[in-house]
């Protein structure tokens, strides 16, 4: 029941929102629906922790891994919703660019992402993964400017083609399962596939073929490097709350789907092949994105490439595997979404107040926008992985696992990229913050909705840097137990 209600709330909410043309009322209603949804997600996480696995019908299931991702979705979504309430006051009243359309699409987007995490069936997961693209394409093109339309079109085409490859991979996996005696009704069910996996060892090259297609397909959605072309455009042109959702939730959802496949294939034919692929894509994404960070001229584009880099880090964590690598990778998905949300929120404020995101047109921000600058600095320090923040812990875990496994090439590239990214962020930040202000901001102080979410995000990063909270340690254990 509770699984269904967590799907029904955003779906009904999306329909309900369209009935409220008044932006103020729409915003309040959205906050209300959002709160209900977060409560129901919290209840799922709690129930999963107590009872292990929740099953609803044949197609929905929540286990430890879903619970962990649901919690992170709920958290980031909550931040984004509160931030949007202040953000939307700048939005003009176009035919489709109004608060109600915005919230309606956001809830639809949320619905698809939650269903991805609750799918027991890999086919349903694929359908909903494509659904995330469809629900968010209009949000990416929301402003209807030249850039937004181009980014939206590119996003729709690149991701749909990419996801088509994932469908092919899923079919090959299904074929291998049916061939090895799994009933065709169960051959897409993740749990039955996990139990049947040892029997499928004989079909090694079918499984390898499946994983290659799946990693290319879902990798497009994650933003792994040769397939990342949609990501910077979509993140830059989308409204800021959507950039935060794309980066903090959508990429994680795609990573979650990949984890599920990785677990099956690793169970069947050993982790050698899938993890080698994960390492290759991870290192490639990290290094290329790290270098591209240096030459960026747009603040949100910089953040977008940083997302690619961090997805690379997570893939490396999964690729080195081992208890510490997996732990680091999972924790990093959460840490990264919080830090990236904080950064996108600050970037959104910069755009509102200075009217531009081009970094060569901004300087002296520390004087004109002191609070936003502080948030930007905290977020940047966190995202480059400096000690008092959560990302340091997760990156350190991944690195130390790589060290114990003596993967020195990975470690070297990892560390070099981290220092390059640090240099890049420092270089960009100095230019933004110091010097003479070029233009005066609309208002220099933050409004309550903005400083609340930024404060929560910053506090959370510090908290995770000091010590991973008890709740999360338990959830991480549950999540890792599922994948073993």
């Amino acid at each position, binding site marked *: 029941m509770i699984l269904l209600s967590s799907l029904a709330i955003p779906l009904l909410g999306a329909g309900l929102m369209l009935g409220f043309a008044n932006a103020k009322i729409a915003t309040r209603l959205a906050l209300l629906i959002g709160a209900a949804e977060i409560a129901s997600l919290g209840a799922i996480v709690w129930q999963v922790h107590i009872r292990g696995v929740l099953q609803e019908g044949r*197609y929905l299931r929540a286990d430890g891994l879903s619970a962990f991702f649901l919690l992170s979705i709920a958290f980031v979504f909550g931040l984004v919703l509160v931030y949007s309430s202040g953000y939307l006051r700048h939005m003009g009243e176009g035919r489709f660019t109004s608060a109600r359309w915005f919230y309606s699409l956001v809830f639809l987007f949320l619905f698809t992402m939650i269903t991805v995490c609750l799918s027991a*069936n890999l*086919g*349903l997961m*694929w*359908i909903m993964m*494509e*659904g995330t*693209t*469809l629900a968010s*394409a*209009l949000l990416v*093109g929301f402003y*209807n*400017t*030249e*850039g937004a*339309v*181009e*980014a*939206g*079109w*590119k996003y*729709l*085409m690149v991701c*749909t*083609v990419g996801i*088509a490859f994932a*469908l*092919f991979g899923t*079919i*090959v996996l*299904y*074929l291998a399962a*049916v*061939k090895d005696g799994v009933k*065709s*009704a169960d051959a*897409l069910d993740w749990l039955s596939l996990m139990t049947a996996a040892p029997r499928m060892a004989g079909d090694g*090259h*079918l499984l390898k*073929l499946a994983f290659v297609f799946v990693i290319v397909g879902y990798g497009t959605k994650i933003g792994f490097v040769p397939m990342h072309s949609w990501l*910077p*455009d979509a993140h*830059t*042109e989308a409204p800021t709350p959507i950039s935060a959702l794309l980066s903090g939730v959508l990429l994680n959802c795609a990573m979650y789907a990949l984890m599920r496949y990785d677990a099956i294939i690793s169970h069947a034919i050993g982790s050698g092949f899938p993890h080698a692929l994960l390492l290759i894509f991870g290192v490639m994404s990290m290094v290329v994105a790290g270098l*591209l960070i240096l*030459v*960026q*001229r747009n603040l949100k*584009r910089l953040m977008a490439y940083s997302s690619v880099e961090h997805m690379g880090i997570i893939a490396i964590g999964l690729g080195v595997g081992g208890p510490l690598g997996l732990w680091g990778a999972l924790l990093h998905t959460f840490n990264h979404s919080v830090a990236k949300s904080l950064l996108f929120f600050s970037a959104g404020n910069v755009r509102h107040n200075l009217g531009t995101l081009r970094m060569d047109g901004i300087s002296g921000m520390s004087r004109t926008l002191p609070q936003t600058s502080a948030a930007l600095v905290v977020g940047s320090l966190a995202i480059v992985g400096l000690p008092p923040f959560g990302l340091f812990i997760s990156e350190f875990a991944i690195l130390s696992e790589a060290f114990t496994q003596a993967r020195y090439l990975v470690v070297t590239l990892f560390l070099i990229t981290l220092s390059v990214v640090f240099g890049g962020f420092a270089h960009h930040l100095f230019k933004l913050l110091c010097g003479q202000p070029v233009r005066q901001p609309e208002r220099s102080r933050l409004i309550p909705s903005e400083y609340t979410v930024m404060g929560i995000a910053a506090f959370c990063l510090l908290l995770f840097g000091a010590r991973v909270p008890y709740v999360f340690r338990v959830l991480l254990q549950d999540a890792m137990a599922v994948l073993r």
Partner: protein
Amino acid sequence: MGLVAIATSKILSSFSVFLFLSILLLAVARRISTNVLLFGVQSAVITAEVFATGFQEKLAEIYVVAAMVFVIKVMLIPRAFFVLTKKLKTVHDVKASTTPTQSVFIVAFLIYLSYAAVQSYGQEVRVPEDGLAAAVALILTGAFLMVSRRKALMQMLGLLVMENGIFLAALLTTFGMPLVIEIGIFFDILVGLLLMGIFTFRIRDTFDHLDVSKLRRLRG
């Protein structure tokens, strides 16, 4: 019943030839409407193949899938494309970046490549090699159409051809996915096309053309 059985075996033995023909014609077709028509014909061939499979394997579920393929891919989508081209008032040329001769050679090469690719898998999964090669060739040709035709509508069509290939591969190797999943995939395709349609209007309204190769503002 004898007639149906004969038709079934004929369809199963010859559908791949028709599919190869359809993609070779897609390579030379210069007008968008011709391309759409060819896609419709291609989908009709696939519908026939789905029916034949259903008849041969005596799987009632597959008839539902066949009906869906027919309604959506043979009737609905081509018609939607015609409406779209009319509403968009765009010129009919697909704006190919390769000449028809080059395209034919490329597609022929892709067919050869598909045969090479499926050789090792064909025997293992006990599927006729021709059919599997046709499926892979459809996927590759779809991708080729997407990169070599500059009209936004042709990219949508390339995607559909690719999807036909994936659908065919699933059908040949596993007699299709479970019905619920199949329906979900069709739903996704429809919504996806609807959105792409919306975006073509937006592209035309903001850029005054439909040439996606000119969408190059966002770089780096």
